[in-house]
């Protein structure tokens, strides 16, 4: 094996690892990583499943004045529609002309679906004895000249079909306009993409790139034509944009974290050991571990979530520890791989076992994404231990010490903390922590923290701009009501309405809007269709009256369209029991609020405006398994509550399990207590840092605590076993296992620290906290633990280690 040049091995193994990474499929569905039993998570999942259209891009245009925004939007829409095989349809704020042309079928359907009592009022207006008088009233209103929006609409709707405010629940016609801001300067267009499989984020990314190119070209032309007089800003958001960005960010994060970790670890190895051949073999081993773990992970879990992106870097940082321990100890193995495995194998195996147990304990966490990451790392460390012990060990024994090499190696300078300082810190740090806790209290979790929010995402920025422009500070929260049949859906909506009204009375909710008028109602439609049958024959009379009153053909067009639509709809009711709206605008408008899912679920989309969105009282008041709100505000609160429960549920069993394992590892109560004390010491230091620096805890990085405890135990196990082997010789232990732990700790910190630049907030904060924690564990294990070990095992032998330090040239220190 050692006759093969390491570069060749590196290239072959690197290619295998690269292939494994490229084969990884990422799931951009962020909700799979959150606790599925939380109503907020269910709300987000159902909103995504039933109402999020994978291929629907939201295009926003912002300008200084309404006219420019409107003109720009029309122009941009034309350009996008003309782009070959990119966009199949588009929907934006319509002009009166366009509403007249396309709104008739929607109005016809809404009336057919309305309460029979409301429909009867419309029919009453159309009766021969009333219609002429109503038309004359409209003409009178027009004569007044006080032209407002209502008068404008009535010029094209003389019979008042558009007076449907009572039917759809907006009595005064007010309510947020979904496509245009109040001042008209911000406009929204929904664009239906085509030509790609939008469930594949890579395909979505490619499509989005083409759309961005078309938009960029249009922006240049618009700027050239309009100059500085009408500058416009275009934003792109919606599902395809999110998918493309999240997926691309995940790929980038994984690539960068793995590459940066590998490079930094390699640099660290070079600084400490000044050798390239062992480094090459070590990198090859790490890549092999990554490839095997990805293979197993892909078979077991299928698509990897955004959190699992972090596993690779973490694994690199942990697996290299075993290789370094083997490399350091191999120097004294006399070329016998078996002897090496006997010597350090137990430490590596116990270390891997404790680390795996810690990561597997994340399965008790409420966050499925964290569980998946923990499982992958657990698999990875097990694979890592095996690969290092049986793959790298035989190679490691071939690297023998040479004098020049020793001279070039990095040396730990000094003995670190003096005995006195070790004692002071052993007592002082915990006391300082207690005082700090008294002053500042227990560190709490950040409120309103969303672990999977992607930072610096253009599509997320555009989405926030859209919410702010259209809804201001009050953002209604989407609420999904589901049922197994249409009849049940109406029952669920009615029940939801009752709960909401109660919540309004209790001050928990300011306002709620239900889509009931847009949900097909077979009962209403059957009753109204029967009434309509007698009116359909009156079309010619009504059109004649409209003309006689003084309206033109354009003024009668909407009425004609409505009667045509009604004829079709009545046929649909007779055939299928209920009719769905026809026409692009009508279908699109209804589909935004009602769907019949492929899974047989009927879903309706409403909105709720809570008084205090971050609190959970309103969620508990209105939610049932069939009606859930996609509330980000209260999700943060819910996650914090859940994580606090998890700390007890995960942490306590884990500590018990680890303590039991430590009994078998040490078989000595002093060493057991010393190991646990080191953990407590590091934790105290973390609390101090949380209190007095910018470091903070949140619902995600708090899950790193078990990881820190596991890796901290790992370091203490290695150091204590080494001290046992050499009879408590601090200098020898520090030169041998200490250097290994220095490398291990730093490399693990690098692995976690590389996540601090990840695009997901949660992953970035987890990486930072774990990097800091591991460094604290390392400093404790290398520079404090040996002193404490001697303090408790050899309290009288305070001179011996100094003599060993002076006389042993092999262990000379600068």
């Amino acid at each position, binding site marked *: 094996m050692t006759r093969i040049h390491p570069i060749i091995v590196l290239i072959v193994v690197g290619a295998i690892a690269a292939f494994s990474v490229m084969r990884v499929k990422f799931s951009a569905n962020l909700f799979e990583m959150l606790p599925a039993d939380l109503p907020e998570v269910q709300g987000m999942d159902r909103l995504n499943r039933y109402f999020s259209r994978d291929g629907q891009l939201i295009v926003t245009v912002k300008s200084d*004045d*309404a*006219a420019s925004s*409107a003109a720009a939007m029309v122009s941009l829409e034309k350009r996008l529609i003309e782009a070959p095989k990119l966009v199949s349809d588009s929907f934006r704020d319509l*002009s*009166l*002309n366009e509403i007249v042309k396309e709104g008739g079928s929607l109005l016809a359907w809404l009336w057919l679906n309305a309460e029979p009592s409301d429909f009867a009022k419309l029919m009453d207006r159309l009766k021969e004895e009333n219609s002429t008088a109503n038309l004359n*009233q409209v003409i*009178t*209103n*027009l*004569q*007044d*000249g*006080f*032209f*407002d*929006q*209502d008068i*404008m609409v009535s*010029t*094209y709707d003389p019979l008042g079909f558009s007076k449907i405010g009572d039917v759809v629940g907006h009595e*005064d*016609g*007010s309510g947020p306009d979904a496509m245009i801001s*109040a*001042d*008209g*300067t911000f406009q929204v267009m929904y664009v239906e993409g085509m030509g790609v499989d939008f469930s594949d984020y890579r395909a979505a990314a490619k499509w989005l790139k083409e759309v961005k190119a078309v938009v960029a070209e249009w922006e240049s032309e618009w700027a050239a034509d309009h100059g500085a007089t009408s500058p416009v800003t275009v934003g792109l958001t919606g599902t395809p944009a999110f998918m493309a960005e999240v997926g691309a960010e995940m790929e980038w994060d994984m690539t960068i974290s793995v590459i940066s970790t590998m490079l930094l670890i390699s640099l660290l190895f070079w600084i400490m050991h000044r050798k390239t051949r062992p480094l090459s073999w070590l990198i090859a081993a790490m890549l092999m571990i990554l490839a095997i773990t990805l293979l197993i992970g892909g078979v077991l879990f299928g698509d990897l979530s955004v959190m699992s992106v972090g596993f690779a870097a973490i694994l690199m940082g942990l697996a290299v520890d075993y290789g370094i321990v083997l490399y350091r100890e191999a120097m004294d193995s006399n070329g016998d791989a078996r002897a090496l495995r006997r010597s350090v194998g137990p430490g590596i195996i116990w270390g891997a076992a404790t680390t795996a147990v810690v990561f597997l304990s994340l399965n008790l966490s409420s966050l499925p994404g964290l569980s998946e990451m923990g499982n992958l790392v657990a698999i990875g460390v097990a694979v890592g231990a095996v690969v290092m012990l049986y793959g790298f060990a035989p190679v490691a024994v071939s690297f023998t010490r040479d004098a020049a090499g020793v001279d070039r190696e990095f040396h730990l300078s000094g003995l670190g903390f003096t005995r006195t300082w070790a004692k002071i810190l052993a007592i002082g740090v915990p006391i300082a922590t207690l005082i700090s806790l008294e002053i500042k209290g227990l560190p709490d979790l950040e409120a309103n923290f969303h672990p999977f929010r992607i930072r610096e995402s253009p599509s997320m920025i555009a989405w926030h701009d859209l919410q702010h422009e259209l809804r201001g500070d009050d953002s209604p929260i989407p609420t999904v009501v589901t049922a197994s049949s249409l009849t049940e859906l109406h029952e669920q909506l009615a029940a939801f309405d009752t709960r909401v009204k109660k919540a309004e009375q209790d001050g928990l909710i300011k306002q709620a809007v239900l889509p009931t008028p847009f949900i097909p109602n077979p009962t209403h439609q059957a009753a109204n269709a029967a009434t309509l049958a007698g009116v359909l024959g009156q079309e010619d009379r009504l059109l004649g009256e409209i*003309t006689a009153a*003084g*309206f*033109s053909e*354009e*003024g009668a067009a909407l009425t004609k369209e409505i009667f045509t639509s009604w004829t079709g709809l009545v046929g649909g009711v007779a055939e299928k029991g209920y009719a769905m709206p026809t026409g692009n605008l009508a279908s699109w408008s209804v589909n935004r609020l009602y769907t019949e899912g492929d899974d047989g679920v009927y879903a309706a989309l409403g909105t709720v405006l809570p008084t205090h969105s971050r609190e959970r009282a309103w969620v508990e008041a209105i939610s049932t398994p069939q009606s859930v709100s996609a509330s980000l505000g209260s999700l943060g609160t819910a996650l914090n509550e859940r994580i606090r429960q998890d700390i007890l549920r995960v942490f306590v069993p884990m500590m018990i399990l680890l303590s039991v394992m430590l009994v078998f590892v040490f078989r000595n109560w002093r060493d057991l207590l010393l190991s646990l004390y080191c953990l407590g010491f590091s934790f105290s230091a973390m609390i101090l840092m949380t209190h007095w620096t910018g470091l903070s805890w949140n619902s995600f990085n708090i899950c790193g605590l078990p990881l820190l405890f596991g890796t901290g135990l790992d370091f203490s196990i290695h150091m204590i076993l080494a001290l046992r082997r050499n009879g408590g010789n601090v200098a020898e232990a520090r030169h041998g296992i200490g250097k290994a732990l220095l490398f291990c700790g730093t490399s693990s910190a690098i692995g976690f620290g590389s996540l601090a630049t990840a695009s997901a907030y949660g992953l970035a904060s987890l990486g930072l906290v774990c990097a800091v924690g591991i460094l604290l564990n390392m400093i404790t294990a290398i520079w404090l633990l040996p002193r404490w070990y001697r303090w408790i095992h050899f309290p009288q032998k305070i001179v011996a280690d100094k003599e060993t330090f002076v006389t042993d040239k092999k262990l000379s220190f600068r």
Partner: protein
Amino acid sequence: MRIHPLFISCLVVASTFLSSPGKAVAGDTEVVERWLSSNGGVGSIMIEFSQSRSLRSLAALSGQKGTIWINYNNGNFRWETGEPAATIVVGGGSEILIVRPGQKKYERRKSGSSNSPGIAALADGLPQSMSQFQAKYKLLGVRKDGETYFIDTEPKGSASKEISKFTFVIHSGNYRLVGIELDMQDGSSMHTVFTKVELDAATPGSLFRPDLSGYQETKF
């Protein structure tokens, strides 16, 4: 002196270019400023008008005469058409009151809930400074025809919906507003001529509080 036809052509082209809407030039702003300054210091105004409408949805032209009172001090307005008044609209606070004396009915609407193009936009009052003007309108350009300036604008905000052009017609001698022209997106238009303008007209409080005794509230 004989003038070369090419020179005249150039002048015509130049004047067309200079007066074309969509590109406001320095001289245009001066006209606007002079008009705005004529509005300054006015506490109230009464305008009698005659309006003609060409609406695409109607087969024939229509017209109406009316009066509008605006009190700048308290922000109230009253609009009245017909003789006797067929429709009265008063407003200035959080709601608009529409009264039809002939039907003995009235409707209350939230102010701003229905966008008001055309003459109804004046219910907010005429701008009295360039900053007020620029807040509400985008100046497209100024044309001159005889003794009249036409200040072409695009209303800003929600008032611009369906309106392609809103024109203030100004007398070039005294820079007083003499009319308004409205062009709509659908091709409809409204021309309003002020037959009488009275500055600092009497606007007693009762003008803006019509007696609703015996009237029924409704939705028109």
